[in-house]
């Protein structure tokens, strides 16, 4: 508790790979929000994280470097949540596959600007689902739109994934 | 005795000729109206039945006679059946006093070219004209339908209003002619028709006459777009036809009266007198058709305003002026 994120990455995890720069990380598993670069030195305890608007989650830290497409990463996470939904309540059961579809379209160059507003509205509405699964599941998408909206826009404008050179 | 029988036969013959001509004329007046109206509106008008649609009146009458005669269930049956006849008959009867020539000599007999030379012919005309409104009012009432009733009431109100100005407009004529007899009135116009001395009278008379015949712009009793067909809404077949004929006979009568009172009656050069009368009747009828093709319908309040606030005062003033002239 209280260890700085930078310390965990650089000391305990052995630092970034060669040529890799810290871009963002998931501080506590799939159902937490992306921590962008500005939180690189954040203290990893409940209070600080809450103040920063984040959650500590499960403690499984996933780090993304500058070459990683966060839309693709979020798509992957959403794919997981869509699959894991139990199917009881509507927002979670139908919302995640819908968001998966929208993210897939953005990632594959079929994105439209209005998708972003649909996504952000849906993220808000998924908080009204039956259990805490959906609010957790939308955390990556919410933070993607909050911190990396430019990246999403870039996908839509270029009609392809900017990290994919092909 | 023989004279009496001869007179009777003569009367019947005259009646037959007049009636035949009137009904024939009424039928073709319908045709003329449709045709002329169409041309005024840049259309063709009837042109299917016969050349120029000339057989149209015949086709129409066949149609009307063969159509089903419907009496509404809630109607007052007797009155409903009688009303159209009242309209048609009163219109026809008015012709009894209209002179269509001075006289004719056949086999040494002087035959006056008028069915009956009443000395109160003008009053007779007005009496019948007033009776005609019964047909409208009763027909509307007996139909037991709200539109028909409204039409009937409007008809009655309109007749009463315009009867007044109609009558008043003729007082100067009577004053000039010094007689109520239509024959005398025509005689009085030997030098010039009264229209030259009484143009205002003529205008009032003509407007009132159009209103009397319930024609556009005064056709409020049947106003299609408000009342369907007004007082004759529930009528079908030949009963409707009677109303229809009544209206056109009325036009002829009014044309004849206009001719008698203002246009010199049967007087005119070159042509035989009855032809002159006929031409004058047709002329008046054509003008009425022209009016129909031009003017929109008045609103009810406008109608009443025109009758009571314009025509009646104007007629009264006209009487005073005429009286003054005669006295001076």
């Amino acid at each position, binding site marked *: 508790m209280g260890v700085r994120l930078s310390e965990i990455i650089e000391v305990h995890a052995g630092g970034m790979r060669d040529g890799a720069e810290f871009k963002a990380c998931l501080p506590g598993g799939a159902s937490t929000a992306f921590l962008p670069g500005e939180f690189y030195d954040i203290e990893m305890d409940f209070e600080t994280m809450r103040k920063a608007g984040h959650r500590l989650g499960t403690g499984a830290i996933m780090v993304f470097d500058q070459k990683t497409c966060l839309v693709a990463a979020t798509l992957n996470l959403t794919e997981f949540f869509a*699959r894991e939904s139990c199917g009881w309540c509507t927002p979670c059961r139908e919302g995640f596959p819908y968001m998966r579809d929208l993210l897939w379209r953005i990632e594959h160059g079929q994105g439209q600007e209005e998708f972003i507003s649909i996504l952000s509205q849906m993220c808000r509405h998924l908080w009204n689902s039956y259990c805490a699964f959906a609010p957790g599941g939308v955390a990556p998408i919410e933070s993607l739109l909050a911190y990396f909206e430019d990246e999403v826009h870039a996908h839509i404008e270029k009609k392809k994934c900017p990290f994919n050179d092909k | 005795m023989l004279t009496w029988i001869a007179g009777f036969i003569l009367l019947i013959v005259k009646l037959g000729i007049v009636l035949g001509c009137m009904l024939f004329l009424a039928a073709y007046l319908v045709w003329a109206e449709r045709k002329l109206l169409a041309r005024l509106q*840049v*259309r063709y008008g009837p042109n299917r039945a016969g050349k120029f649609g000339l057989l149209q009146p015949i086709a129409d009458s066949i149609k009307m006679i063969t159509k089903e005669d419907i009496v509404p269930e809630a109607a007052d049956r007797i009155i409903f059946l009688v009303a159209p006849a009242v309209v048609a008959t009163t219109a026809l009867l008015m012709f009894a006093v209209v002179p269509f020539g001075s006289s004719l000599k056949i086999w040494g007999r002087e035959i006056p070219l008028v069915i009956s030379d009443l000395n109160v012919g003008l009053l007779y005309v007005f009496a019948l004209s007033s009776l005609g409104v019964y047909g409208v009012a009763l027909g509307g009432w007996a139909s037991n339908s709200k539109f028909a009733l409204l039409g009937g009431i409007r008809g009655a109100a309109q007749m009463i209003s315009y009867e007044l100005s109609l009558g008043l407009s003729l007082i100067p004529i009577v004053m000039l002619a010094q007689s109520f007899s239509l024959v005398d009135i025509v005689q009085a116009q030997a030098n010039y028709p009264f229209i030259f001395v009484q143009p205002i009278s003529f205008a009032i008379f003509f407007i009132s006459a159009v209103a009397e015949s319930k024609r556009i712009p005064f056709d409020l009793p049947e106003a299609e777009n408000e009342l369907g067909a007004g007082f004759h809404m529930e009528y079908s077949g030949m009963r409707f036809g009677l109303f229809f004929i009544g209206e056109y006979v009325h036009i002829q009568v009014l044309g004849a009266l206009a001719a008698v009172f203002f246009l010199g009656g049967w007087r005119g050069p070159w042509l035989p007198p009855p032809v002159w009368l006929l031409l004058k009747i047709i002329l008046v009828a054509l003008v009425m058709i022209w009016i129909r093709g*031009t003017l929109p319908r008045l609103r009810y309040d406008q109608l009443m305003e025109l009758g009571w606030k314009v025509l009646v005062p104007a007629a009264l003033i006209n009487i005073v002026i005429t009286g003054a002239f005669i006295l001076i």
Partner: protein
Amino acid sequence: MNTDKNESPMTQILADLKALAIGFATTFKHLFQKPFTEEYPEYKRPLPARSRARIILTRDPDGGERCVACYLCSAVCPVSCISMQSAEQADGRRYAPWFRINFGRCIYCGLCEEACPTAAIQLTPDFEMCKQDILALVYEKEDLLVDHGGKDKQYNFYQYAGVVTDVGEKGTHIKEEKPVNIRSNLP
């Protein structure tokens, strides 16, 4: 009569008379114009394709009846001139064993065409359907059904509906995934 109040009555009357005169002159001039009328049986004016007259029942591109007897046209019809019975065909299609339009009542408003979800019922420009016998104006399905697609040649409702018919099994229609395998635990 609605002229300015400051004008003298005489000017007003003169203005009114002038207006009347113009009116009468106008109609009088009409007497000598050639009428506009197109004389119908001799000259038939070509009607636009979307004119609303005789109603037809069309077929989809494969020749199948488009009507699924959903009763929407009869529901929307303001004069209740459409009646039908729905039933199931052997291949699972819903269809109308009988379908009747009473053209004696029809007001050709076109609401049925608008309501039709399968583009089956369409109005055509053919308006010459006068009959001596009013019962002859009651058209049955045999009289209504045509062999073409009308205005919309391509649409086939069953390619979108997602129900099992001869057009296709579950999952073979437009924009459909393969049916979910409920026996599999694989993601």
